[in-house]
């Protein structure tokens, strides 16, 4: 039957794009498979993953363990490294064949390159950087009861709605918007890394996960880009998403950025954490962009988030307000960062931070 993106009934199942780099799966894959499992269960449908690479079928059980029923494996030397051209062509073929109702992509630099290209080609909607997904209206309303200021129970709702409800922050988390794609399929969404919770690994599911080897058809004439090299730069990469403690610096370090960052690093080292930064600090070139927390940077939820000299623009708050415990030091008692802080100290960071380092050392017994 011909592919028709408006024939809603022809589409079934939840599909996740599983991204590998250098033959290794990304942690976002496990988050998305775990989230996809919940959605597939709500719809009582199959959860599939689509995995592209060159000889990558060995990764299937790893994905199965987090909840995938079946992985569609696309092997070809031209798929070893990501290119928009090759990946978009092959995944378009997969979607034309499988017709999933929902297609999820991790919002990595690669996912955010691929997903819009696919959505434009498939003539369907795409919602970027989602932080929450629901199908069932009861679950969605439960989410709104705690996650919004809406008087949910005083409002009228279409309880039979079965669209994927894709919620994302807008304007720095000041607003949240739930987006639907009611007239076209698949419903597509990119999902923020680090937001969805990974399910426990299930050995039985890993063993039961099926593999479909997809017949890859690539036309060299359509491949206009070529990857010349892939370079890993581990030294610059800060694992903000995996960190339990983040010590972030803001414009308050402007008088001596180097010293400010060094102090933050020392405090982070004592507490076993890493250094983050506000947009202003990154824009000023004092630290590399991989340290940036916030709407355009990373969304983090460490156990402890220490904000030093950060006023707390909404973009920044959006990226850190879900941290378990927030400590803010700012000389301005009215700084918005104190609105989200659990503990605040109004003071000069150049004086307070050295004392914090000493106190942290004492507390840690070092």
């Amino acid at each position, binding site marked *: 039957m011909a592919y028709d993106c408006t024939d809603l009934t022809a589409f079934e199942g939840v599909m996740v794009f599983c991204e590998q780099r250098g033959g290794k799966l990304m942690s976002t894959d496990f988050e998305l498979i775990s989230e996809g499992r919940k959605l597939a269960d709500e719809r009582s449908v199959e959860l599939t993953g689509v995995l592209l690479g060159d000889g990558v079928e060995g990764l299937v059980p790893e994905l199965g363990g987090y909840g995938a029923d079946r992985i569609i494996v696309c092997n070809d030397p031209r798929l070893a490294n990501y290119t928009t051209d090759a990946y978009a062509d092959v995944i378009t073929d997969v979607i034309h064949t499988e017709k999933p109702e929902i297609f999820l992509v991790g919002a990595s630099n690669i996912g955010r390159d691929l997903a819009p290209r696919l959505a*434009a080609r498939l003539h*369907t*909607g795409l919602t970027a950087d989602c932080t929450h997904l629901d199908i069932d209206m009861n679950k969605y309303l439960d989410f709104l009861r705690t996650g919004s*200021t809406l008087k949910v129970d005083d409002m009228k709702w279409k309880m039979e709605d079965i669209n994927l409800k894709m919620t994302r922050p807008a304007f*720095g*988390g000041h607003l949240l918007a739930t987006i639907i794609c009611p007239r076209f399929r698949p419903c597509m969404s990119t999902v923020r890394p680090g937001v969805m919770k990974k399910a426990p690994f299930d050995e039985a599911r890993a063993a039961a996960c099926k593999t479909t080897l997809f017949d890859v058809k690539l036309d060299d004439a359509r491949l206009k880009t070529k990857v010349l090299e892939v370079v*890993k730069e581990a030294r610059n990469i800060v694992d903000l998403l995996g960190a339990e403690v983040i010590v972030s610096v803001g414009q308050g370090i402007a008088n001596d950025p180097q010293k400010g960052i060094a102090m933050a690093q020392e405090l982070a080292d004592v507490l076993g954490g890493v250094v983050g930064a506000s947009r202003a600090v990154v824009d000023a070139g004092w630290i590399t962009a991989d340290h940036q927390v916030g709407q355009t940077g990373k969304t983090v939820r460490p156990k402890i988030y220490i904000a030093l000299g950060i006023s707390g623009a909404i*973009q920044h708050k959006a990226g850190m307000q879900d941290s378990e415990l927030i400590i803010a030091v700012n000389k301005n008692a009215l700084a918005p960062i104190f609105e989200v802080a659990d503990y605040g100290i109004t003071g000069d960071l150049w004086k*307070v931070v050295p004392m914090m380092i*000493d106190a942290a050392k004492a507390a840690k017994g070092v």
Partner: protein
Amino acid sequence: MNIFVCVKQVPDTTGKVAVKEDGTLDRASMATITNPDDLNAVEAALTLRDQIADSKVIIVVMGPPAAASMIHELLAMGADEAVLISGREFGGSDTFATSQIIAAGIKTYGLGEGDIVFCGRQAIDGDTAQVGPQIAEKLGIPQITYAAGITYDGGKLTVKRMLEDGYMTVETQTPCLITCIKELNKPRYMSIKGILEFDTKPYYVYDYEKLKDDPLIEADTIGLKGSPTNIFKSFTPPQKGVGQMLEGSGKETVDKLFNILLEKHVI
């Protein structure tokens, strides 16, 4: 050779964000700026233009007539021509519909072999990063996103494309579309000469009538009606409970803080 740059005028979200009662953004009450990443795209285009004989930079903006002031600034930076795509039929477009319209605008101007389209990585009002790749798809040309370095050699571009854990070096044929990040360059300022000359430069306004014959422009592919995504609900998140401001900023205060952390077993 045409070097297009797609630019968006955005509300300045670093200032106060005004929200209407229905939960949508009150754009009218907010100051507007040129989207920051788009300035890097403009700079990339101007740099390339300065290297290549017989090339020109065309600014392409979709927006209300008031975007003219921003376009004047970009012309004063050194861009050669501008196209403002504006019409009420285009209002309410999501990224899909927006890319249909901008792609139609670029085609109407004329996209030739060897031409290049630059975009910023993403706009600060929506942060989707979708319109660039979607324009590339609608134009049927390759894309490279997250460009942090660009080398031009005849009909080919070599681009340093950033990843979270490093980068790729990618070679692409032209025509192509590149999205730029702030690491790529430092945007130049307007020049005195540019400010004096901007109003002598070609400035085109494309409305619905001008674009309607392009196959990309249909009633069901543009504007609110042509947008695959709809807002189901928009809302504000609850405010976090008020935290505790510690008194003072001396050693006793810092020690008190760390005692609390120890008692709570968070460190």
